């Protein structure tokens, strides 16, 4: 809390100093570019000037981020390749260029206003608090009676300290408020505009969509392979065994019990194989009973004790439930297979529109977060606009933290 006040004050003070400088820079360079704009030299000049302006804007973004407590993204799309003339012209058409300049101009008046209100308030309040230390050195006999008592007697000065302390929260509020407003204006101008934000979002969506399609194709291939080598092959084998039994019976007239029971066993295995596959596609209990019950069943099947803490999860969309289920299944499997964990805790919470799943094991850690199993799940989670973070220092513990938005 105190730090925030100090940061706000530092922000206002530096704004006061930087404001005139950026103002002069913006005015001069704009004038120079304007004058040169009729000449051949305009694009390269503009390119150079903007390069410097962007460094200043970067600094401004960092300063504002300190006050706002969150990073501010840079808004610059990549420049086209080509000579300085091509690139210079592209910069002129780029809205971010002009928004940067706008802030550099605005910093001067805003910085001045912020300093006048915020810094003065802070300095006066601080001075009041420390009144007993310095006020004796500037005696002033021409003061009205009450003020005279406050200023010129030791007791009065300590009352001033008390007053200053009482007003400190108000001063703190004022200083952080003024700095906050200034930083928010900076952020509004220096972060990506709506057009660029949408373009970025579209790019992001296109790439997650492509990854989803890839993941889905890979998944279908895996299912085809599993069916081909598993259940299908076992059924064919059972058919072969029965064909032989049939032949033996025809030749000898004796029932071929061994072959028949072999065929039965092969069919049982084929069914088990199919059940395993179906469970891997979409566990039936997830459809029947929902996420918490499905995870409880998963925990019950795990070869290590698993504790589940589940709050009220509401009814997330099937895709969300399914992703949460398979993330947990994969994390559990990894905990057993790679981390040699002895216990595992699953925590499920739903806050507003975000379902959070955290799997915590006490294994030896060192998990490869980009491993193939988790990578497929990451695509699945990202497709739902969710995030998955794996923390697994060597020596453990491993924590797989997944957040899935439920409102799409």
């Amino acid at each position: 809390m105190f730090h925030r006040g100090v940061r706000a004050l530092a922000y206002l003070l530096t704004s006061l100093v930087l404001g005139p400088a950026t103002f002069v820079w913006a005015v001069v360079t704009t004038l120079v570019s304007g004058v040169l704009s009729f000449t051949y030299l305009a694009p390269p000049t503009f390119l150079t000037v903007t390069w410097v302006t962007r460094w200043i804007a970067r600094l401004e973004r960092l300063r504002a981020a300190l006050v706002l407590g969150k990073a501010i993204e840079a808004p610059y799309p990549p420049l086209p390749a080509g000579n300085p003339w091509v690139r210079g012209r592209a910069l002129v058409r780029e809205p971010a260029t002009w928004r940067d300049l706008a802030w550099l101009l605005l910093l001067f008046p805003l910085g001045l206003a912020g300093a006048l209100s915020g810094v003065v308030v802070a300095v006066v309040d601080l001075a009041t608090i420390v009144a007993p230390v310095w006020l004796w050195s500037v005696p002033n006999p021409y003061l009205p009676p009450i003020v005279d008592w406050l200023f010129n007697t030791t007791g009065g000065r300590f009352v001033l300290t008390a007053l200053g302390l009482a007003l400190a929260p108000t001063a703190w509020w004022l200083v952080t408020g003024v700095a906050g407003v200034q930083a928010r204006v900076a952020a509004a101008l220096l972060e990506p505009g709506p057009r660029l934000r949408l373009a970025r979002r579209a790019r992001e969506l296109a790439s997650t969509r492509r990854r989803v399609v890839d993941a889905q194709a890979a998944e279908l291939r895996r299912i085809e392979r599993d069916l081909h080598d598993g259940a299908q092959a076992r059924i064919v084998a059972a058919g072969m065994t029965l064909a032989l039994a049939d032949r033996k019976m025809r030749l000898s007239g004796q029932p071929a019990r061994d072959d028949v029971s072999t065929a039965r066993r092969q069919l049982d295995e084929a069914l088990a194989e199919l059940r395993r596959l179906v469970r891997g596609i979409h566990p039936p209990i997830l459809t029947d009973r929902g996420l918490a019950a499905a995870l409880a069943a998963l925990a019950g099947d795990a070869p290590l004790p698993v504790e589940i803490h589940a709050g009220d999860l509401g009814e997330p969309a099937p895709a969300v439930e399914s992703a949460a289920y398979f993330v947990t299944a994969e994390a559990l499997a990894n905990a057993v297979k790679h981390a040699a964990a002895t216990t595992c805790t699953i925590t499920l919470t739903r806050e507003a529109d975000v379902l959070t799943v955290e799997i915590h094991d006490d294994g030896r850690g060192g998990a490869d977060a980009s491993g193939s199993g988790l990578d497929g799940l990451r695509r699945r989670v990202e497709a739902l606009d969710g995030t998955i973070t794996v923390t697994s220092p060597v020596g453990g513990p491993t924590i797989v933290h997944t957040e899935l938005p439920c409102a799409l």
Partner: protein
Amino acid sequence: MRIVIAEDLLLLRDGLVRILTDTGHTVVAAVATAPELEEAVAEHRPDLSIVDVRLPPGFRDEGLRAALAIRRRAPKTPILILSQYVERVYAAELIADGNGAVGYLLKDRVTALDEFLDAIDRVAAGGTAMDPEVVRQLFARNNRDQGVATLTAREREVLGLVAQGLSNSAICAELVLAPASVEKHIGNILAKLELPLADDTHRRVRAVLAYLNH
């Protein structure tokens, strides 16, 4: 008959070995990969090779590719391809060289033991054994064909069996028809499709398959 088997799934390889051994054949080699198949065929010169389409290491159509390669080096090497799925394109590639002694069957057909044994005899003797499913796909592709459209239902049935590689006598048995009427049907079919008359079953199959696959 001396037979080489190439099948990667142990379960099915064992099943095939048992069936063939039980029915009086000798399995001289049972291998799991395409390179091993090529080696085994070169070494044993078997009367027949039974090959799974999908083999390691790629698990695509390595078996089929190996079969085609073997037959490029030594034409008329009898090969029966077994698979859990059939693709008309693969059948076309197999019959393209016109040499006969090829078969392409679903693995399920193995369980109809007599027909399967008949099919391996046919392929080993230089004939053809096409899966009914392949023939069905060929017909489906030719459903607008002028020639096929003029055939009667019975003639189509006969054509289907001819395309599978069955001899006249086998067709008689299958459809419970007199030899004379099968011959008459076949004569009509060949005339309507404008295919050359051929007494040789093998050449007739090739002509019919080529027609259906054109």
